[in-house]
């Protein structure tokens, strides 16, 4: 930096001399550049004997230098200050002197450094419990706010843009059809395959139609659609709202007196809650189609016979339970996506965490809800 030379320069060198009995002269030579090896600091410490009271620098042999030299000198200065040795920086290149002055101009913030405290097991348990309670409270608050927003919607007083709702309905509905078709068809196929092998032992292949029909319509259609929507739409809600949080867009709504829950959360939730039962029904049909492919193609069951068998097996009650389950999933997936998005921190890493958390929360909620609905149906005799 101080002098640009084209040829290869000598490596960083360090030597010492004693121009006076109480003075140590530190001589820098060669090129002190980032990327080259510099002499160990212990060499200097060895040379700094207790009788040294003054330290000077000699840089006549220095060919080139950068931060590597400055950090070394800063260490020397620090070490000398600790031992009350006077340092004369006159021999250093002017640029290096300025950099040293600049780097010591603002004193190190003592209180800025973090205190690392060892936390006891009890402390950690307590802290995590507290965090859990707070998170539960946040979730309840959010659910409360959303309920209020829905109540306002019913009374026709909620404020959001109808265009947004249409857009979200398209996103949660039509645009999700290809992936829902593929996954549900394959689940139907797999179910039929596995069932067929077992049922063939008893010569009861025809019951594949019952198996696939009931399983898909009553629970699997809704679960498949729910999990797909948690991964596809719940995460996208969280990412959208999280990014809006980072860009202060949500603050802007609040300062304008517009409720972000009504303006942002409501249309998203409404769209998914409306579309989810429809996606569930679509998923049922696709699953049954998968069963048909195996039944007709592999088990040589007549198409009409298969459909007739399905029609007899699936009751209207199963269908309504499926639709109800899907609607519940719509609430859960959109709620978890929007909740995590609104809770998002203010940086890009937080958006990632919000998205992950939305998917995890959504899927856990789906599984728990499925279990609860199944048990509840059993208890009221809807078998």
């Amino acid at each position, binding site marked *: 930096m101080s002098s640009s030379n084209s040829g290869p320069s000598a490596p960083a060198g360090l030597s010492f001399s004693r121009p006076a009995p109480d003075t140590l002269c530190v001589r820098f030579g060669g090129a002190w550049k*980032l990327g080259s090896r510099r002499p160990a600091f212990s060499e200097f410490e060895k040379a700094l004997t207790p009788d040294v009271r003054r330290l000077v620098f000699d840089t006549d042999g220095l060919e080139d230098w950068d931060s590597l030299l400055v950090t070394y000198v800063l260490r020397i200065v620090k070490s000398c200050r600790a031992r009350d040795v006077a340092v004369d920086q006159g021999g250093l290149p002017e640029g290096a002197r300025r950099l040293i002055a600049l780097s010591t101009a603002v004193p190190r*913030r003592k209180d*800025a450094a973090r205190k690392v405290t060892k936390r006891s097991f009890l402390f950690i348990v307590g802290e995590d419990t507290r965090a859990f309670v707070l998170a539960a409270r946040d979730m309840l608050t959010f659910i409360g706010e959303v309920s209020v927003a829905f109540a306002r919607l019913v009374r026709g007083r909620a404020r959001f843009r109808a265009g947004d709702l249409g857009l979200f309905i398209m996103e949660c509905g039509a645009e999700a059809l290809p992936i829902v078709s593929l996954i549900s068809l394959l689940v139907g196929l797999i179910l039929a395959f596995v069932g067929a092998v077992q049922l063939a032992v008893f010569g009861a292949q025809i019951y594949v139609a019952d198996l696939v029909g009931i399983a898909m319509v009553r629970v699997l259609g809704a679960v498949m659609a729910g999990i797909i929507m948690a991964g596809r739409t719940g995460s996208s809600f969280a990412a959208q709202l999280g990014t809006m949080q980072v860009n202060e867009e949500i603050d802007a709504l609040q300062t304008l007196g517009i409720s972000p829950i009504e303006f942002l959360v409501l249309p998203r939730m409404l769209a998914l809650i409306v579309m989810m039962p429809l996606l569930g029904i679509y998923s049922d049909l696709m699953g049954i189609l998968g069963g048909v492919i195996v039944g007709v193609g592999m088990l040589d069951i007549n198409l009409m016979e298969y459909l007739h068998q399905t029609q007899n097996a699936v009751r209207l009650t199963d269908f309504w339970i499926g639709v109800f389950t899907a609607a519940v999933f719509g609430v859960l997936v959109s709620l978890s996506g929007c909740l995590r998005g609104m809770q998002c921190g203010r940086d890009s890493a937080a958006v990632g965490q919000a998205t992950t958390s939305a998917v995890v929360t959504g899927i856990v909620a789906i599984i728990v809800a499925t279990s609860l609905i199944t048990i509840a149906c059993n208890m009221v005799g809807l078998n």
Partner: protein
Amino acid sequence: MNAEAVIKVRNVTMAYGGFVVMRDLTFDIRHGDIFIIMGGSGCGKSTLMKILVGLKPPAAGEIFYHDTNFWQLPPGGRKDIMKGVGVTYQSGALWSAMTLAENVALPLETYTDLSADEIAELVSYKLSLVGLAGFESYYPSEISGGMRKRAGLARAIALDPEIVFFDEPSAGLDPISSRSLDDLILQIRDSLDATVVMVTHELPSIFAISNNSVFLDAETRTMIASGDPHTLLRESKNPKVRAFLTRGEKQ
């Protein structure tokens, strides 16, 4: 001042798709300059900076770093040149998942084979240069906007660059912080013997530290003036340049 030109811009045209933003830009940035790219909002100042730092290719024309034709190089060659160039962005653009120390350390870890201790020492030194000694373990979200800009500068000068680019360094800062950032830029230029290229329309900054500039005009889509802003203020006859440099006040 007749220092050697470190960046030569020759007949550069910038465009987004078919839409030409600026054409026929030709100017030199000399060693040791504090060079300002100025002009009204939306005239393409930031786009020009993107072209200079290798983020966006020009639609036509050439850019030379010393005598190397920058955009004719393969991407690997451009990367080698960019090692000697530091860039700071408007909002700091610190990586939010890393502490300040990790932010500054990343270029050092990538381009040098220094030991972890040496890197930690360099990181502390760079942060102390920008007045952030002691803030090593902080995350960008935990410090103020002005501090983020300074931390961005510490990262930009991690590898002792020959040229430092600033995109609107004092935007969003109070006059005193803005002034001290100007001083810092000057001091870093002097002590690192570097060249500074700045996109800004802060007149106090321009007149306090700059000695060379180019003025871009959105209407004619080309540069309408270049040179020392002080000289431009005294001698330029162009009404747009005069209006800009006097904040539109009648004289």
